[in-house]
């Protein structure tokens, strides 16, 4: 049981590390977000099995849906952004710099 949870957490941490260690490509961030969502999904499912509650599994389906939509939107933004700036390297995305 614990191993499953640890697996989910490990996946989640990998996703987080991917988020703030990536310097080059913004697609990796999107991938990391997906990875985190999947890790959460695994957690949901593990706990739903553990607690014998169907709600977690249903919720993970919802999360999958949302993740798909979100990655679609993210990729669309990415394409537009590439057209405008000519680059998708995260190092050069700093227009919010104070």
């Amino acid at each position: 049981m614990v191993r499953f949870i640890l697996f989910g957490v490990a996946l989640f941490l990998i996703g987080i590390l991917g988020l703030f260690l990536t310097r080059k490509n913004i697609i990796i961030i999107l991938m990391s977000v997906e990875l985190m969502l999947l890790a959460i999904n695994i957690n949901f499912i593990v706990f739903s099995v553990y607690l014998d509650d169907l709600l977690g599994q249903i919720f993970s389906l919802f999360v999958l849906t949302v993740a798909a939509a979100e990655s679609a939107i993210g990729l669309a933004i990415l394409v537009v952004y590439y057209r405008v700036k000519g680059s998708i390297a995260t190092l050069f995305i700093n227009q919010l710099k104070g």
Partner: protein
Amino acid sequence: MYLSVLTLPLISCIIVGFLGRFIGTKGSTFIAVFLSGTLFLFSSFLFYEVGICGDTVVIDCFNWFSIGSLYVNWGFLFDTVTAVMLIVITSISFLVHLYSSSYMDGDPHLTRFMCYLSLFTFFMICMVISSNYAQLFLGWEGVGLSSYLLINFWFTRVQANKAAIKAIIVNRFGDFGVMFSLVSILYVFNTLNFNSIFLVLEFVAEYYITIYIWQVHALTLISFFLFLGCVGKSAQLGLHTWLPDAMEGPTPVSALIHAATMVTAGVFLLIRSSHILEYSSTLLILITIVGALTAFFAGTIGIFQNDLKRVIAYSTCSQLGYMVFSCGLSNYSVAMFHLMNHAFFKALLFLSAGAVIHAVADEQDMRRMGGLIKLLPLSFSAFLIGSLALMGFPYTTGFYSKDVILELGYSNYYFEGLFAYWLGLFGAGCTAFYSMRLLYLTFIGETNSYKRVIEGVHDAPIRMALPLIILSMGSIFVGYVFKDLFIGLGTDFWGNNIGYVNNLGDVLLLEAEFLPAYIKLLPVLFSFFVSLVCFYLYSEYHHIFYLGTDSQFAKAGRFIYSFFNKKWFFDAVYNFYIVRVILTFGYNTTFKLLDRGIIELIGPTGLVRTFDNLSMRVRNLQTGYIFNYIFFMIVSVIVYLYFLNFDFYIFNSIAFVIYAMTILQYFYAFDTRKFK
């Protein structure tokens, strides 16, 4: 009519000051002169009613302010002292208004000048007709302010600026004295009204104030502070330095303020507070000695001055010394009499000096004048009459008061009386000497002036001549006319308005009648002798003063000359030991160390810098990189979760504080520049 004495100069000041630019120079001059003339008329009636008929008038108006048990009304007291002061102030003020309408003709700021003159008259009248010390203090400060404004009238001249600042700062010491006396009067009497204070004096005669471990006689303390005020305003020894410098102002101002009226405010204060002074014999001695020293000291300086107006200024200082020591000898009526006489002949002297200065193209140095007797007959006559009155020539105005003062000094059996007599006698000799010197150098001796100046010399025009003529009449006759009224034996003119504890003043007046004849004649004869010596010296041995030999005699002479010409080095000592020290302290310590130093550091600048620094750090935090923001979010969440796990319900807030501090630490620790 009584209150219009106060309001007329105020109306004049407001009209001329605020509307002067619309009604023009001539209109505003006319208004100021007309209103001050009306004022003189009113105060003449007032003198008749209050002085001659003996109706003391008290007008209590509405409340001014009340704090606790202190309840101060706008009150006006018209007694004989006030009436005499009013006559002096309004007559001189009127004549000076008239005079300056011609003297200042062509000055672009004539309206401002007239406004200031009226303002001064207003404050002076406000001071003399007040019925309580608070209102008196208002007028007292007001005349100081007007004096400052008028000395500084030609504000583009740096000397005028310096003189004005000096006048107001030196006067401030005196003002502090008056303020302290007000506070101590409040402490002792719980009121500031003259009537209440003078009524209960008898019951606080033995009252002592404990200051730390000293028992101080309350009335002596009050008198001391009052006298300090007098020393400041009336230019007595110690705080006299501002008066000669104040001659930088226009000459009519010198006549009105620095000879006739404002400088006598200190003497007026002493006379007004005479009831209090009478209970403090210690202080009366001090007043006598300081006054006598001033009379002597200013006389010796006057001999060695070369500036026409400065000589007269020192003469004023000297005459004020006579008034003050007369007060110290409890002869307030004589002091008042001398005040009035002095106002007339000193105003005359200043105004005729103004006429001379006007004639010789604004030259004030007597050494560059001379020979004006043929060119300026009117000014010379006025000057001569003024000088004779000042010297105490028999049967002129000064004779009646100055000689009485000296006689009173001699008829006093105490040490200070004789002290005052001899110093006063010497002062009278000095007076005769410098008056004669003034007349000789300016009018009689050969001229040292330029040809162009001499060609342009003209006598005073009518508006300047008229005041001279009127004041000459005053200088001749005022003393004779008013002698019996003011200081005649058994006169009831003053009534209770002047304090006598033991009627000492009257006794002394009687005593003075029985002095040996040579003592009574000594001042007059001495003055005669000294003026003849002066005339002889300057007509026969004038060249000797300009000998530049290196002989022992010349060196000694030079030392004596510079000692007196530099005013006994009073100014040098003050500048070196007081002014410079205070200025250095003010610049280095209070300005550089405190104002622009510590206070700036912990105050505005420090605050600005701190927040600037902080905001720089916070701004640097906003790198704009997504991964940085994510890092912060995640670290924060982790830390927050960590502290939540403690589950200290009560200490949750503390946990939050620790969390916030941790976040702040990141603010400082995080330097994004390495990403660039």
